[in-house]
């Protein structure tokens, strides 16, 4: 094959990718080998680094996470040099900025992601409740419905499930809580200052800690996306925080709650807060060790083009990185909430990856461990955040 492309580990994602590649092959006559890589982001990253550190040309085009450009930049080509001017004009600016390291565009935005709230519209109707807009509201609604359902004999019904395992997902969840409070803000701000230890964050975490054993099962402390979806999709939860990917699944033909689910933006922190979904998503980058950088850049351009993204949005509900597609009728027909949640996607909160650079994983780790401890009830939110503050200061000393 002329090129090797790593995209998505798994089936549906992989198939979409392969279909796109086919079309490019048909168009250009080049051949591309698609390799699948591990599902877990960290494993995928270390595999990439393994290959890149060996200066190997085994993979030409990489699919990389939004938090990776900083780390991988030295091994990636500057796409600006290989693509026509203005190639990035139509994309979300935030993502393009995220992908630009020291003025070099190391990756093209491919699809984006942000956390959303799934809820059981039938149950809210049944108990005559509104879709909550604040975390406090969510807590209340969850309590009401949970109590009601339990009374009705469904002893394993819960109000809210989310991703509580000590892993990157918890960083995302917790950041969404904190960021949704006014001035709650960030873990580390854009200047690299540690900001996490503040009263709003304490409030947010305290509230969340109260959920455990109340509206969320203790097991949530070991949930990832799939476990949460499992509970929700089997009809045992009222609310779920998840990524848009779950939409297809909860609405699939075999789903027991098909057509009884709707999606809303995540709640805000208190009346003055704002909804905040954390930015996720993937980009395409070209290896510096590639034998055909121009050809590879062309492939990247093709895969991130309007048509291709539209197809992916329709067929796989992948969030486009082109604002224009959020107004596209065909896309909206397939994924209705793209329209209503447009703001969530455009204003998604980034994780402090860029500013902490190589140290981001440690920062994230310290953060989610603290949150996990707080949720487990081992420490109070105040104590936890204080410790986290010290820990982060310690980390910061080691050059970030």
């Amino acid at each position, binding site marked *: 094959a002329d090129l090797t492309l790593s995209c998505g580990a798994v089936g549906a*994602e992989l198939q979409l990718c392969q279909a796109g590649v086919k079309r490019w092959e048909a168009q250009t006559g080049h051949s591309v080998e698609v390799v699948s890589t*591990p599902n877990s982001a960290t494993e995928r990253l270390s*595999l990439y680094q393994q290959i890149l550190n060996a200066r190997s040309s085994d993979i030409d085009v990489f699919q990389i996470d939004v938090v990776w450009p900083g780390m991988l930049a030295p091994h990636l080509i500057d796409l600006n040099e290989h693509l026509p001017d203005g190639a990035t004009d139509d994309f979300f600016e935030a993502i393009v900025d995220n992908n630009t390291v020291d003025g070099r565009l190391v990756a093209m935005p491919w699809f984006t992601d942000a956390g959303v709230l799934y809820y059981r519209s039938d149950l809210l109707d049944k108990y005559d409740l509104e879709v909550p807009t604040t975390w406090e509201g969510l807590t209340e609604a969850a309590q009401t419905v949970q109590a009601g359902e339990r009374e009705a004999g469904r002893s394993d019904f819960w109000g809210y499930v989310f991703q509580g395992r000590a892993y990157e997902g918890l960083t995302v969840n917790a950041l969404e809580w904190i960021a949704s409070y006014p001035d709650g803000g960030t873990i580390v701000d854009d200047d690299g200052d540690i900001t996490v230890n503040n009263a709003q964050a304490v409030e947010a975490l305290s509230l969340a800690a109260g959920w455990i054993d109340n509206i969320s099962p203790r097991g949530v402390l070991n949930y990832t996306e799939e476990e949460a979806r499992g509970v929700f999709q089997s009809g045992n939860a009222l609310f779920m925080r998840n990524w848009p990917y779950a939409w297809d699944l909860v609405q699939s033909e075999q789903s027991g709650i098909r057509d009884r689910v709707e999606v809303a933006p995540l709640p805000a922190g208190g009346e003055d807060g704002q909804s905040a979904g954390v930015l996720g998503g993937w980009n395409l980058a070209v290896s510096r060790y590639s034998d055909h950088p121009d050809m590879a850049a062309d492939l990247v351009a093709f895969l991130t083009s309007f048509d291709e993204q539209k197809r992916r949005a329709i067929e796989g509900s992948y969030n486009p990185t082109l604002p224009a597609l959020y107004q596209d009728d065909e896309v909206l027909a397939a994924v209705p909430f793209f329209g209503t949640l447009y703001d969530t996607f455009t204003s998604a909160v980034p994780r402090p990856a860029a500013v902490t650079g190589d140290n981001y994983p440690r920062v994230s780790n310290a953060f989610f461990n603290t949150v996990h401890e707080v949720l487990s009830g081992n420490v109070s939110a105040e104590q936890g955040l204080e410790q986290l503050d010290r820990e982060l200061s310690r980390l910061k000393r080691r050059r970030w």
Partner: protein
Amino acid sequence: MSLRTLKAVLLKIGFWLLVAVLMVYAIFPFYYAVVTSLKPSSELFEVSYWVDSVDLSNYAAVLSQPTFVAAIRNSVIVALSVVAIALLLGLTAAWALGRVRFRGRTTVMMLVLGVSMFPQVAVLSGLFEVIRTLDLYNSPGGLILSYTIFTLPFTVWILTTFMRQLPDELEEAAIVDGASPWVTLTKVFMPLLWPAMATTGLLAFIAAWNEFLFALTFTLTDSQRTVPVAIALISGGSQYELPWGPIMAASVIVTVPLVVLVVIFQRRIVSGLTAGAVKG
């Protein structure tokens, strides 16, 4: 009489109860995997102890992937080669370590053991470099070579232990008969070590068959991948979705050859091979 029979019966019942308990403990998870693999994905999140309706779609999904079939082939090649190499090198080394007394023997034993003292992640990148240097990246050769790092130590140690237990007189008889160490090893000891060899071979085979991290790191293309990697990369809807049904189906599919293998090999795990050799 009746007391005796009662006792015998009770003993028998006790024994079978023990067997039953152990069996349940051993295979229940596997059974559960089978049950899960036979369920359509919609029923995945419901507890059930039996298969109500057989839904083979997961199996069809797995087997229809050409890459999965290729992965099975690769796994077979890799695992068999690993077993062959491990047994060959293990037997010769075990003879040296178990039957000859020389300076440095203990050191060698400890070095061999030391190889298995580093965590896999720690050797991963170094091994990656070695394999690239030897130009074995993305080929079964690389996997075969790298798997010796965990199969050889225990093969050597186990075979050494068993080798020591064979009667010395046998080797002496072979020496008097004019057999070289190689002949002694292959013609006299090897047939007597069948239980040990079948066991280590089986363990090495399974270890190689199931290895994940190296297989993931040292192969790249689907045509070279092994079963565990293939399973891990089995299609789900997206990055977050775990396709439980197909994964379980695939696990069941790859476990079956191992069970067959066990059934074949366990014939070799028989007792009394050395009966009648010596007095005393």
